[in-house]
């Protein structure tokens, strides 16, 4: 009798745990769509590539375009800007990156970056000719005072990283595809 009871208990325990596990997995599977619907939907993802013509931008000027709901900063850098950026020693940088790593080879005058401060997501100023460019001639975030240089690298302030570079490539010398 005693051994029967033990077998019975073991069997019941197994069934109990198996049922519970099945129930937990089932609940998780049922809940997942309710959570995943919050992720970017197909129409948002469909806007993931744009083409931008650079032909109308003159040297020293910047334009802002929208990509995935975010501003993209495109700057036609002057020779001065590039020289200034290249002259910065690596050890002065919080998030070290050489000027060459920030641009496409052979198209050094074009700096293309996501115009969102890496601190808490504000849009830095410095795109328009009259607006504050910060202490390093690049961009300045008014929210918490981050300064970016002419290669979009963080130089001063609370932001931890350089301005993010989107995936993009040159389709021709005056046409880029972002995304």
């Amino acid at each position: 009798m005693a051994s029967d009871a033990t077998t019975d208990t073991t069997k019941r325990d197994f069934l109990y745990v198996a049922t519970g596990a099945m129930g937990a997995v089932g609940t998780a599977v049922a809940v997942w769509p309710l959570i995943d619907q919050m992720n970017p939907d197909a129409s948002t993802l469909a806007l993931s590539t744009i083409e931008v013509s650079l032909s109308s931008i003159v040297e020293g000027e910047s334009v802002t375009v929208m990509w995935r709901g975010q501003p993209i900063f495109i700057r036609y850098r002057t020779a001065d800007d590039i020289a200034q950026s290249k002259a910065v020693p690596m050890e002065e940088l919080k998030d070290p990156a050489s000027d060459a790593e920030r641009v496409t080879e052979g198209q050094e005058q074009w700096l293309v970056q996501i115009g969102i401060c890496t601190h808490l997501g504000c849009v830095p100023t410095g795109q328009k000719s009259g607006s504050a460019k910060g202490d390093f001639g690049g961009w300045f975030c008014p929210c918490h005072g981050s300064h970016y240089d002419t290669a979009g690298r963080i130089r001063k302030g609370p932001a931890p990283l350089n301005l993010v570079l989107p995936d993009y490539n040159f389709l021709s010398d005056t046409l880029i595809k972002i995304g």
Partner: protein
Amino acid sequence: MSGHSSYNPTNPVAKWLDSRLPIMRFSKEHLMDFPTPKNLNYWWTFGAILAFMLVVQIATGIVLAMSYTPDAALAFDSVENIRRNVNYGRIIQATHAVGASMFFVAVYVHIGRGLYYGSYKEPREVLWILGVLIFVLMMATAFMGYVLPWGQMSFWAATVITNIFSAIPIIGDPLLQLLRGGFAVDNPTLKRFFSLHYLLPFVIAAVVALHIWALHVPGNNNPVGVEVKSSHDTVPFHPYITMKDLLAIVLFLIPFAWFVFFAPDILGHPDNYKPANPLITPAHIVPEWYFLPFYAILRAIDFDMWFISAKLGGVIFFGGSILVLFFVPWLDGSKTRSGTFRPLFKPFYWLFIFNFFLLTYLGAQLAVEPYSTLSKISTAYYFGYFLIILPIVSRIETPNPLPASISESVLGKGGS
């Protein structure tokens, strides 16, 4: 706490109902006869004021939702439409917006009262924890509500606050996209915030019910912090406390009404009357006043600590400033509840209150000197109060003698 029931229905319908669903008995025991310490002062009326404010916010909110449109292209105009065209919309919208501020005034007083009189101490720990939970839910609700008018401040508040989650290592960015429903704050974000802003007040109401349940098990704390010993120490909730609470609510309504009728926008920010623009960040973004102390703490951490970046550090301290409240019952080991009888505790407590006002002030300033350094000192005291001062003071302090009972403390004042 409730003694023998005084509910003895004679009406046959009332008797019939009482044996099936004793809701009348429950109401009589908990809303009318409930024995309440007779020495409660006016700081104790803020619980009732908060219950009243929750009702005001839910009532005005439900009505506003009838005319509001949660769509990025239409939200701003729909709020303007409420303010200009909807009958009484100007007043209802102002009541809801000002009401959020008044709600926080009351909750800060309520929490401050609990901290002074040791209302979190044994056997009221669960009551306190539920209260902190309500506070967290309130903050989430208020934040999402502020986003709904879709002005510049709404949009950038949503951007900056959701960005806090991106500081979390590894899962930060996917989590950020999940919260926003896109790569930036946009229409999906607005819609989900509206949905949750409508939901959370009812969650708050449910936790408030638990909060009151947890209150009615040990009964109220009181200004001397001595437990109720006999029926001489108490008065029935109705009419003594109900009338006192009502008077307090009326007095509370005076500044509330002044704001609503004479200065509905004074607590807001002019930039929020510009429609949201994802390409331009306002030059000086500040949260609503009731978040300023915590915003000051978030900004105070502008330096890296070991492997923790300034950004993540700020977020950890920001979260920690609220999390620490959950542990107060165990950080303060003093057996004496009321601060009135704690000579060493008292100056530190009032310094904490002053410091909280200072943090509020600092949160509104630009992140430059001397405010940056002051913010760091102020943040250090905020945490030091809970993590160092409360545990040490409660160990080394000799409290003053307590009165033998609530009754004695009340009657003793007459010199008898």
